[in-house]
Each structure stands twice: as C-alpha cells, then as structure tokens.
C-alpha cells in the first residue's frame, strides 16, 4: 500500500498479485465502462497472450475480466465491465472505481489464445463478449494475420464498436438482431477457407448455439474456441459426502454449498482466489471417486484423469469423494 511496495511491483513475483492504480475510467455505453490500470511509475507491465483475463479483487471477492489490448509490451491493462445490478457485486464494485484507486490484480492468465497456425481467425462476439475478441483483433492487425468479426449487439449498446470498425474494416459484420445474425453465421460457417479457427465469446446459450451449429456443419473441435465470461450461475448441484484421507474426517456437502465452502466451514485453509473455477488456486488432489468438473481451468485430459479438482465450483458425480487433505 505504500510507495515502496508499489515500486517493487515493477518486477512482480509470479505467484503474487500486482498492485495497480486506476489510470482512467470511461463510459463505453450506458451500462459498460472501460477501466484502465497502470503501475505507479508508468512502467512496463508483463505482456500477455491475446484473449487473456485478469482476476481483479474487490472487497471480499474477485472477478475475471478479459483484457482488451493486444498484450504487446503494455504499460496499462484495460478491461470493460458490464454493470449487472443483481449480480454478486463485482461489476458494481468495478463501476465504482475512480482514477487513483489502488487495486490488486492477478497476472494475466491465458485460456483463450489465438491459434498460431490459423489461416484465418473468425471472431464471433455477442454483447460484452466483444472484450477478448477485440484483443484477438488487435493482435491479428499487429501481425498482419487474417481476421474477421461478427459482432452482435443491440442498437446503441455496443462497446468498442468504433475500434472494431477501425481494426477490421470490411472484415467486421455488425448484427443488431438475432435473425440477421443467424443468417450471417450460417453463411460464414459454410464459406470459410481451410484452416480457419473460430473464436466465440458471449452468453453461454449464445456460445452453445454457435458451437453446436459449427460442429453440425462439420467443423472439427480443434478449430473451435470459446471463452465463457462470468455471470453464468452454476446450479446448486446434488449433495455428496467428502472423505478427507489425511484428516480422517467425512463431511457432508449440501446442495447449494460449494466443496470449498464446506472445507472452510470445517476449519481447513484452502488457497483460493476467484471462487469461480477460473484462477486455478483452489486445486485439491482427488484419491477416489469421480468429480463433476465445472471449472474452466483444468484441461480436458486433466479432467479425465480425475486426480485433481477445483473445489470452488466442482462437485461429485457419485455419492462420495475422497481427497488427499
């Protein structure tokens, strides 16, 4: 919190968080605000892979937000946040930030990277889902990579529209309603050149629909990329029992209470940060049983291995799990 501590952040520890200052706040639309964070001395921040997110702490919680820059030698990190009145409070906290406020943020984490071998990048965004694909569009422009964007937003509510137009020119197709989007999507999914990769970000139902249509049209899974953003509430899940092998105790995890919450209530300390299955902090080793993986952190193979689970969001497929805790 002191000036000395801030200076140390020019060369941050990887495991630690960065303390940054809000350097600008600007309204994109009535409900979307862009917030920029920088170091106290305007120093270079760690570069990041396009499509990366930043976990920003607020009060007692933390939310992940997509970075909207290209990630090349940045002196600032920018995010754009949609205000959600009845959410968990993260978006309201972000909207309350003022220039000069200090925030704790994670290092940028990459989970939605562009494919280096793509012959073309087909970007598809709905609403606030524009944020990570804008990062992709900037990177494509910097390296002269071929990219196009289908951007669905309601009239007058689109964030970063001017930048998207400038970056993509004729490669941008704006859709202001569902039916025109469907028409454009069908056309583009059936006319892409070989080697095109598709990247989609938006509400879960939107992404599911785009990905399903692409698969139905024969797109291989390896060409499809999606980035879920926060706000999608997970269901309460079924109750289950968890046996802690080392502590030799068995706990009940009721529906609607997370495994992480249950462990904490029992007095265990589990490192954690986002509590949304994004940051990877709360991994716990599984000895027996089959986890119901609901996180966005583990790879498919790691999920299949069933030896690790993210206890903040994941639960159990069976009635009992045994953990190495």
């Amino acid at each position: 919190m002191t000036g000395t501590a801030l200076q140390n952040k020019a060369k941050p520890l990887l495991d630690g968080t960065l303390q940054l200052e809000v350097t600008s706040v600007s309204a994109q639309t009535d409900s979307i605000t862009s917030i920029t964070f920088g170091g106290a001395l305007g120093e270079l921040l760690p570069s990041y892979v396009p499509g990366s997110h930043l976990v920003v702490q607020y009060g007692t919680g933390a939310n992940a937000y997509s970075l909207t820059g290209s990630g090349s030698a940045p002196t600032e990190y920018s995010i754009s946040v949609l205000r959600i009145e009845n959410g968990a409070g993260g978006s309201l906290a972000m909207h309350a930030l003022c220039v000069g406020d200090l925030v704790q943020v994670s290092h940028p984490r990459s989970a939605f990277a562009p494919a280096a071998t793509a012959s073309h990048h087909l970007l598809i965004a709905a609403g606030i889902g524009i944020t990570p694909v804008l990062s992709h569009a900037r990177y494509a422009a910097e390296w002269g990579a071929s990219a196009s964007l289908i951007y669905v937003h309601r009239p007058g509510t689109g964030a970063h529209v001017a930048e998207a137009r400038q970056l993509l020119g004729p490669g941008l197709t704006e859709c202001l309603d569902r039916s025109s989007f469907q028409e454009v999507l069908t056309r583009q999914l059936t006319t892409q050149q070989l080697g095109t990769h598709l990247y989609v970000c938006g509400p879960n139902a939107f992404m599911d629909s785009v990905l399903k249509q692409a698969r139905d049209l024969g797109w291989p899974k390896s060409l499809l990329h999606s980035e879920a953003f926060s706000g999608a509430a997970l269901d309460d899940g079924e109750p289950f029992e968890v046996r802690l092998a080392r502590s030799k105790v068995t706990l009940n995890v009721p529906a609607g209470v997370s495994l992480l919450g249950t462990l904490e209530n029992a007095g265990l300390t589990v490192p954690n940060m986002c509590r949304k299955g994004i940051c990877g902090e709360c991994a716990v080793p599984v000895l027996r049983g089959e986890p119901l993986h609901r996180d966005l952190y583990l790879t498919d193979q790691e999920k299949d291995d069933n030896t690790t689970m993210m206890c903040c969001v994941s639960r159990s497929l069976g009635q009992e799990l045994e953990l190495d805790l």
Partner: protein
Amino acid sequence: MSTVINEAVRDADVLPERIKHFPFPFSGDIYRYSANVEPSRKEVSTEAGAWGGRLLHIDEHYLAELKDRDEVLERDPSRLQVLPHMRPAVWDAICTLLPALAEEYPDTVSFTREGDLCRWRNSLQNLDVEFTVGDDSSLPMGPLRFLGSQIQDDLVFLDHRQDALWLDAGVVTFAADWSVGFDVGMKFLEVHHPVPRVKEEKIVSRAEQFLMRLQPGEQYRRTNWTLTIDRRLDTSTETYPNWAHDRMTIADDPALPDRLHLRVEIQHMIRLPHSGAVLFMIRSYLLPLRDIARVPVWRQNMGRVLAELPDDMAEYKGIIHYRKAASDWLLSA
C-alpha cells in the same frame, strides 16, 4: 571432520571459474531419467561453487562459442528453422531474453524499448543496433539468427495446439546427437520417441503436460547430461561422421582424462508472455574429466554413476564403449 571441511573450502578457493560455475548434475551414485524440473534462477551450491542464479549466463567462452555457432550456421543453414507461424514467437523471445540479459548483466549489455522501437547495446561485441519489433528486415541477419548471436543457449520453440506441443522453430548448433532440421514440425512426443525407458515411465508425456500448463512468464529448468570427446559443442546428427568414430578409440587413448568431457545441459523452459509459445533453451557446458577429478566428491559420484548406468541408457547416450574406461580412471585417480 572440521579439517576435511576446511580443506574442501581451501580447494574451492583456488579452483578456476570453469569448475566453480559448472552445473555438476549428479547428487548421488545412481542416475535415472526423471522430470527433474525446478523453478529457474535459483542458485544451486555444489562441492566446487554454485550455478543457476541467472536465466542467462555469460562465461569465459562467450565470444568463442558465438563464433562457433556463426560458423556452423554458415556451413549448414538448416540448423536454423522457423515455420512461418512462429515469427511472433521469435520476436517475443527477443523481447523477453534481451531485457533479461540486460537485467542480469547491466554493465555489459543494455536494452531499451519505446513502443516497437528497440535499442540493443552489447559491449562484448562492440554492438549498438536499433530494430523494430515485428519487422524482420530491421535485423539484417534475421531475428532468430540475431538472437542466437547474443546468447550461448540453443533455442527451440514449441507451439501449443490441439492439446499437444509442436517443435516449429529453433536455432540449434550445439545439439547432443540430434537434429533440429530433422525434428522441425514434429510433436514433442515424437521428438522424444527414441529415448529409452521414458515412454514406459510416461516421463515425456508428463513433461509435455507440465509444459502445456506453464502460464506466460513462468520459468523452469532441468539438467541433462552426456559425455563428449574433446571440447566439441557441435555434436549434431549432421556432423556425425566428424565425431562418432572417436567414441570407438577413446577408451584406449592415454589422453582420455583431458579429451573426455562431461557435457551438462541446463535446459530452461519458458512460456513466452505474448505469443504463448513455449521456449526451450539449451545451454551446454563441457568440463574434462581432469577438471572433474579436482573435486573429490564429483570424481567419486561420476565414477560410480558411469559404472552403474544400465546398458540401454549408456547405449542411447553413446557412451557404452568407453564409460568403463572413464569410470575406472575417475575411481582410481
């Protein structure tokens, strides 16, 4: 007991730098493959000194080794490979490694960057160059060859796609019996296919999983070793006829202690921050057995490791014909 320690300290004081900073790889009398990975830049103490405090290390062979690399590349340009999609990764490596070197050797080299315009000064080479990130023509010899002319490490770039790593670029002039020209375009698992035991022990697939989980900016390292006859860094597959025959005759050569070198690779693994490519750096150190023998614990450890090493591993490392002679000399000296 205290007398022994004092003697060891006195010995270490007079040992030359090449021995003091040598990354002696054996901690006991038995060696097996393992994914011996640890965070980088952590200094490791040895019986003779220490190594590993830096990501990049400039030692007394700096100019000679870079001259060697340049000559190899002139003779055989296939030692440098860049598939077109790896261009951003190469520039990312330049923007990552040159500042790292400047941070570790501020009196020797400096790096400044304004936007995409960079300036690099290297007093060891009397070099002062400006270049623009992403503009290949701003570095006349090409970005990867330029980077390879500034650091002693060989560089291998892995692209992460389809839940696998692919060796898609590299500048490798000091390979220990492999060929970047042959391996380019292969998957990580395919590259390691010839290594005995590791398939059964799932070491390579675990290593690949580990590398794929590296987050941008994270840095790890491991060591590997073999034996090399004479101070020859270029023991790649391409030059096999030049060096392979020595392996059949060295056992009976009275000059074995001076000709035979323990070759240790410090391999750094980095996830490049902007491109997301995995950079695998291989720095090779050579030390003759004569020098190894000046450190009594090293002499004994290495002698016993060579004697105990199973035949399949000795065969793969190409040392089976002379490891006994080396071991006998070390243990009897």
